[in-house]
């Protein structure tokens, strides 16, 4: 009698383990084998930057003006595939948008934004960068100071593989966030 609930629970336990394990496994694959893209960050509404323990991100590449033909044909909220290419400075930009499923190390899945008049025309599948609670205020300050209209000195490296995109590191002044914060702290 006792065996049956235990056997059922073993199945449940495997499912409970499988969900986080699969999340981690997919990311490990993308992070090790994916192609690296650099996404230049864009200014964020100051109210919106740190929500608890992550930095809210915006990307220059997500800016498509609303009169752009490339995306006018899509309704707000449509799930789309962005085909990326590198610009002259080595940063990622959207080459074209497709509704048909595509795969590859230059494709990310996203959405057409609801805010048509805003500068952010499309939504990338990544918009927050988790930081530790200790680093959060300093990270917020660093991001804000280096993602202004006059001074854009931050970018995010993203690994892309088979349509899956994994945030790798936030670079500020060409240093990983943690190194940058350490250097800033040492200066004081």
């Amino acid at each position, binding site marked *: 009698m*006792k065996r049956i*609930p*235990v056997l*059922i*629970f*073993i199945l*449940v*336990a495997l*499912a*409970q*383990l499988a*969900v*986080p*394990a699969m*999340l*981690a496994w997919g*990311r*490990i694959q993308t*992070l090790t084998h994916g192609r690296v893209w650099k996404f230049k960050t864009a200014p964020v509404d100051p109210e919106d930057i740190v929500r608890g*323990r992550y930095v809210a991100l915006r990307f220059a590449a997500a800016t498509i003006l609303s009169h752009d033909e490339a995306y006018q044909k899509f309704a707000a*909220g449509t799930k789309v595939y962005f085909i990326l290419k590198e610009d002259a400075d080595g940063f990622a930009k959207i080459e074209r948008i497709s509704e048909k499923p595509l795969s590859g190390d230059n494709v990310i899945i996203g959405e057409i934004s609801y805010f048509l008049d805003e500068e952010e025309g499309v939504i990338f*599948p*990544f*918009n*927050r*960068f*988790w930081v*530790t609670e*200790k*680093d959060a205020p300093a990270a917020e300050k660093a991001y804000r100071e280096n993602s202004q209209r006059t001074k854009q000195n931050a970018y995010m490296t993203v690994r892309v593989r088979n349509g899956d995109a*994994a*945030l*790798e590191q936030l670079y500020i002044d060409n240093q990983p966030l943690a190194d940058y914060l350490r250097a800033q702290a040492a200066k004081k």
Partner: protein
Amino acid sequence: MPGSINRRAVRWLRGQLPELVAAGAISSENARAIESHYGPVESRTNFSFVILATVGAALVGAGIILLIAHNWDDLSRAMRTIIAFLPLLIAQSLVVFVLMRRNESRPWREAVAVFDVAAVATAISLISQTYQIQGSFAEFMRVWLLLSIPIVYLLRTTLGAVVYVIGTIVWLFARWGFISQTNPMLFWVLLLLVVPYFWIRFRNDRDSRETATLAIALPVATVFGLGVTAEFAKATDLGGIAFAGLFTTIYLCGIKFFPRADERLHIVALFGGIGVGITAIVLSFEASWHMTREALWGQRTLTGNVGLALEFLFPVLAVCLAGWDIVRRRFQFSLAAASLPIVAAIAWGIANVCKPPTAEHLYKTDCSFAAAMLLNCYALLLGIDILARGIRTNSIARANFGLLLIAALAISRFFDSELSFVTRGIGFIVVGAGFLIANILLFRKRATAIAA
């Protein structure tokens, strides 16, 4: 329900049984018969102890996570991944232990259930942070709920089931927050997953406080779900009938399935009854009957049609429940309350008689006024009926609820009608005098009953 002294005596007797069998005083069949006579052992467990054990487990879990988080920054991704799984593995081992060795102990079951469910959430969140996995709160809730519901069944935790139902409401609101027309179908699936557990509790342990808590959590969740469904199905015109049906169903189920020896109402019936009253008042406003006619002409998807069917489900259910008992002449419910869905349906029909509204009139027609009039008369009758029942059964609470309904109706009309101040003034004096007279009558009746 045996008192505490009684319970102690039963515990003593249970302890004696093996000795008595060994001594040959009674046979083992006798011992089993005595055991079953006093019901399952677990009914002895103190409810507050269960809650304390649950809180204790949650605190220990939180403590472990804090200890791990202490040096989080210095750990590599691989190390963090391993640590994310640790609480989950510990919790799962404990669940196996409880299933094998402590299956009859309710505090153990409730406590490990909380620990396991919290560990699942911890593992998913820690992995998400470590690997920068993006995703909405609603997605997280959905996965979490689906991974947690088997625990409710395996560890037979009613507290867990209540928390699960609250979780489905949280999921609904997380989805609903941004885009107004949320597809609520998954909500109904999630809610249905816990219904068999409720059924088991209802069959085994109908009168316990936990079953009552779950019995009230389910209809509350249904109310939220129906609201979102009505909006999703683009059939908000039918929302009035749907809610009338839902609250009447809850009221009737409360009376039928949770009967009480005394004249008081079970909490489920009470919730339904109050819902019936509020719905009647809401529908007495003329604005409730401004028809958009989307219900009839709007384009809908398959899930939209399922939503529409759900809106019809509860009124039909209410009519069937009431009809069945009326035919068998065995009803104890208030006929006035039970007829709300029918009255609402008639009013809906009246409101739709007039020709399709034009933009200038903003959906307002003579028919919507007629429909509101019908509901006004109904709400007044309902108030009087509840008042009369209160006086008859000597229930001050019920009589005052009836009066409250009448007063609410009067106040509503004060705001949206064009009656003269004199008429409104007289109306208020009549209602206020009614309150006083009814309460004086009731207290006097009660005083004479006590004296006798």
